[in-house]
């Protein structure tokens, strides 16, 4: 789902970043946010609503709406649309309110 050829913008080859999505080893690239990397992999469902467990994905891309909240390295409620992707991150779909007590 990555744009290779664009008439206005130039997307250069970027360094690959490996991270974990629901325990699976996947790849993103330097400059990605967690959400953009997942989107490039075709993952659109990022979280579930707290009560009815409806699938949610990103909507605003600017950190306002919280539809993109995921658990990152054990910490819930991370706004993945504005969080830069880092090597080795463990990203999980958040399906509840988020347990803030990180053991």
């Amino acid at each position: 789902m990555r744009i290779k050829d664009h008439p206005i913008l130039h997307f250069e080859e970027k360094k690959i970043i490996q991270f974990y999505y629901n325990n699976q080893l996947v790849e993103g690239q330097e400059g990605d946010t967690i959400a953009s990397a997942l989107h490039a992999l075709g993952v659109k469902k990022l979280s579930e609503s707290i009560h009815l467990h409806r699938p949610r994905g990103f909507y605003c891309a600017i950190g306002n709406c919280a539809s993109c909240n995921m658990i990152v390295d054990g910490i819930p409620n991370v706004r993945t649309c504005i969080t830069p992707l880092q090597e080795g991150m463990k990203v999980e779909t958040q399906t509840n309110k988020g347990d803030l007590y990180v053991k």
Partner: protein
Amino acid sequence: MLNKDLVIIGGGPAGLCAAKTAAEAGLSSIIIERSPKLGGQLVKQTHMFFGSEKQYAKTRGYNIAKILIDDVNRYHDKIEILTDTTVVGLYKDKVITILHQDEYRKIQAKAIIVATGASEKVLAFENNDLPGIYGAGAVQTLMNVYGVLPGHDVVMVGSGNIGLIVSYQLLQAGVNVKAVIEAAPTIGGYKVHASKLKRLGVPIYTQHTITKAFGKDCVEKILVTKLDQNWNPIEGSSFEMDVDGVCISVGLTPMGNLLAMIDAQMKYISELGGMVPIINHEHETSIENIFVCGDISGIEEASSAIVEGYYTGLVVANRLGYHHPNYMLLKEDYESQLNNLRSGPFGEKIRLGLAKMAEELNHVK
């Protein structure tokens, strides 16, 4: 506690331009921006901007961002920049609290310019929370900043300038735009944008709206319904469209949350996009020495945000005793530029909104 003469909240076009004229007048400032980069929404705009030369017409948005950032960097001795830093508290006595990762700090300012811009509105329809349904601005960010496609077969809801421009940008990225859907009887944005889409084969359905989305983990299909003169759905007129992405472009609304913290006088003015602070001619809110500029004071084009930024930086500097060498000339020029931008038929909405604002200001006095 840090002491700063001028704190500018928001590093988009309005904030950057305010910092520049303030610096020209000799006033130092600090720009606090929650994103990792400056430039606001300009950085994802790949199209050429309208307006006049003074507002960088015919320049692509991301190049305008570069120009404004370069201007600010030229005054590195006067303008301090904090990115990746969120303002979490704003107080009437002009104290600002900021959070950078896990670090919390306090700033005492003499004057503050709040230039936090706007956020996208949401449209209510069944299953509007399905993944694959995005704000149009969000899709621009995804495509133009991160180089990721939002989908392959997309429908745009809303035919204002953002809806029309983003539809064109989707086509440039290789996405099939199946239709532009507009609830009003006429296209909302500039017709030159609509003409571009028509000749590229994109159908535009006026008096239509999206009434339902279908899909398991992502949108797969939508229901589009025709509306009558009274904006009511016409029974039996619905048809389905297979999509894997929907862009919602139904307007922007000012992001004035911080102003609620200082109990600034606000009013709901729909022509300006929603809740806006009541401001005087110098863009000052009801709280002394707290000013606003850009979309937070009313939704307009980026060209207006730029001029409002220059203007507000100028008057705030003057207020704090820093007189720009060309103060009167520039002040008149900025006022005249704004009048010009707002004087045509597309400026009617903003003129109405500003008139309501002026009325409210008099009423409050």
